[in-house]
């Protein structure tokens, strides 16, 4: 029997989708029965109380959670999000119900053994409720009390070789696609770079020093499986400089509808789309119109290709990314809290990914961007908002990057150009006598 009646929450179970309410009820029951004989360190009925307070919030149309608090583990300014219920008398099981963010392994690779250890720990010292994974990529452990925080942290770091992730005004847990470990499209080793920068910027991850949150995400190619372009203040997207590699025989196999060459590697084969049509499905959809298929030969005007990946995705056996690979850096994506949502703007069209010099070219860009944002950013201003406020040109200036055609998103709408003195030959000084030789008073 449930501890609290939840008629409003029950409604949420009636739709066609899986419901978190059903999940929470199931977890409440597991804890009530406790068949595994866990020595719960936080109230056994916390999940019942979680459902109870949520029901009350629906009834009142108001939240009963306080926002924020002083919790954390020693020396860390992030990784724990304090949550306290403002109705502790009614719901003592969730008086404290803090969230812990665990830095997920790169590419989200872990063994079932590790997952079991993690969930056992969380059943023992927390509510057992998890979110795999949060938007930042972290493993989210939802709901524990203040005294349990150090205990969980100790076990994570000492027994699981595992760190907390970022929260608050920190560098957030960097996240990457699985990249070269499994994907033939990857233009660089996302996990290696993600892991390196996670270690390199430990201080930024754990000791808040920024005006607000800051996110890094790494995609091995422009398919952007972790959506870095939309979800990170600085996104690192694999790309190539040279030409798309074409295997003309394979192109013709696709055109001939050879069953061993299904479009999109068979990803959409659940429905009959009719015979493959290269004009309609590939060349006609190229966003820059830079492809042609004539006399059984596919040609690409690579100078005009934007590396959108479409043709490669459709005909993966025939087309491959180029050989001179690296990455592009984009800046300023953010969610719509102020001034609307924003995608990243291209800052560095191509940069080498060189582990041998500790990715020096990349860390230099990062640190220049941080220095500017830490100095000029207002409290709670994201990098993307600072770029809007001070201008993309300012970003180019602080990073020492020359403006180039790839930076142009659309023709300028502002007719005024203000030169700086050092940009003008001879500066602002003029020799009046020299001038008067040619121009009468």
């Amino acid at each position, binding site marked *: 029997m449930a501890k609290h009646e939840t008629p409003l929450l029950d409604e949420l179970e009636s739709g066609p989708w899986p419901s978190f309410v059903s999940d929470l009820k199931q977890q409440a029951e597991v804890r009530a029965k406790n068949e595994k004989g866990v020595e719960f360190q936080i109230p056994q009925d916390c999940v019942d109380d979680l459902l109870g307070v949520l029901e009350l919030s629906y009834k009142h149309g108001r939240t009963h959670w*306080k*926002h*924020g*608090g*002083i*919790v*954390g583990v020693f*020396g860390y*300014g*992030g990784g*724990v*999000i*304090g949550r*306290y219920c403002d109705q502790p008398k009614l719901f003592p099981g969730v008086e404290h119900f803090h*969230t812990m963010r665990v830095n997920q392994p790169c590419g989200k690779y872990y063994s079932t053994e590790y997952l079991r250890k993690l969930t056992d720990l969380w059943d023992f010292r927390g509510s057992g409720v998890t979110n795999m994974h949060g938007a930042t990529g972290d493993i989210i452990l939802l709901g524990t009390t203040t005294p349990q925080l150090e205990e969980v942290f100790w076990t994570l770091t000492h027994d699981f070789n595992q760190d907390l992730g970022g*929260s*608050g*005004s*920190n560098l957030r847990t960097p996240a990457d696609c699985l990249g070269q470990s499994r994907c033939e499209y990857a233009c660089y080793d996302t996990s290696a770079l993600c892991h390196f920068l996670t270690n390199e910027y430990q*201080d930024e991850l754990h*000791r*808040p*020093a*920024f*005006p*607000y*949150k800051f996110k890094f995400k790494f995609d091995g190619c422009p398919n952007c499986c972790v959506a870095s372009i939309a979800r990170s203040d600085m996104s690192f997207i694999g790309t190539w400089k040279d030409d798309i590699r074409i295997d003309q025989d394979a192109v013709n196999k696709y055109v001939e509808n050879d069953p061993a060459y299904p479009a999109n590697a068979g990803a959409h084969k659940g429905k009959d789309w009719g015979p493959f049509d290269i004009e309609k499905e590939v060349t006609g959809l190229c966003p820059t119109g830079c492809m042609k298929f004539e006399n059984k030969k596919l040609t690409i005007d690579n100078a005009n290709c934007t590396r959108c990946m479409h043709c490669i995705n459709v005909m993966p056996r025939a087309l491959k990314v180029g050989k001179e690979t690296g990455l592009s850096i984009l800046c300023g994506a953010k969610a719509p809290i102020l001034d609307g949502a924003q995608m990243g703007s291209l800052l560095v069209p191509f940069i080498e990914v060189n582990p041998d010099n500790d990715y020096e070219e990349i860390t230099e860009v990062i640190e220049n961007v*941080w*220095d500017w944002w*830490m*100095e000029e950013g*207002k*409290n*709670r201003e994201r990098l993307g908002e600072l770029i809007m406020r001070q201008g993309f040109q300012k970003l180019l200036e602080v990073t020492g990057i020359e403006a180039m055609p790839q930076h142009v998103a659309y023709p300028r709408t502002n007719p005024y150009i203000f030169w700086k003195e050092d940009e003008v030959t001879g500066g602002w000084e003029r020799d009046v006598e020299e001038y008067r030789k040619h121009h009468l008073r």
Partner: protein
Amino acid sequence: MSSDLLNDKEAAQKAVVDWLEKKAGSKTKFYIKDFYKIFPDDKPREIKKVVNKMVENEILEFWSSGSTTMYGLKGAGIQHSSEGEE
């Protein structure tokens, strides 16, 4: 190069504590940028190191909403509440 004030660890910490105590009547939690005013000649990343050392030494403590982090003297003000509410 850091300023003399920031380089002198004790003087730097005292400057931070004095400043926070002066403000204590009206506010107990501060953004990292507020500390820049105490060290006008220093780089943000150097100031951050000093302030975070003070957290480690339990002179200061963090307050976090989950999305933003603030700093205050340990034990000062309400320990859990909403942002901007003291």
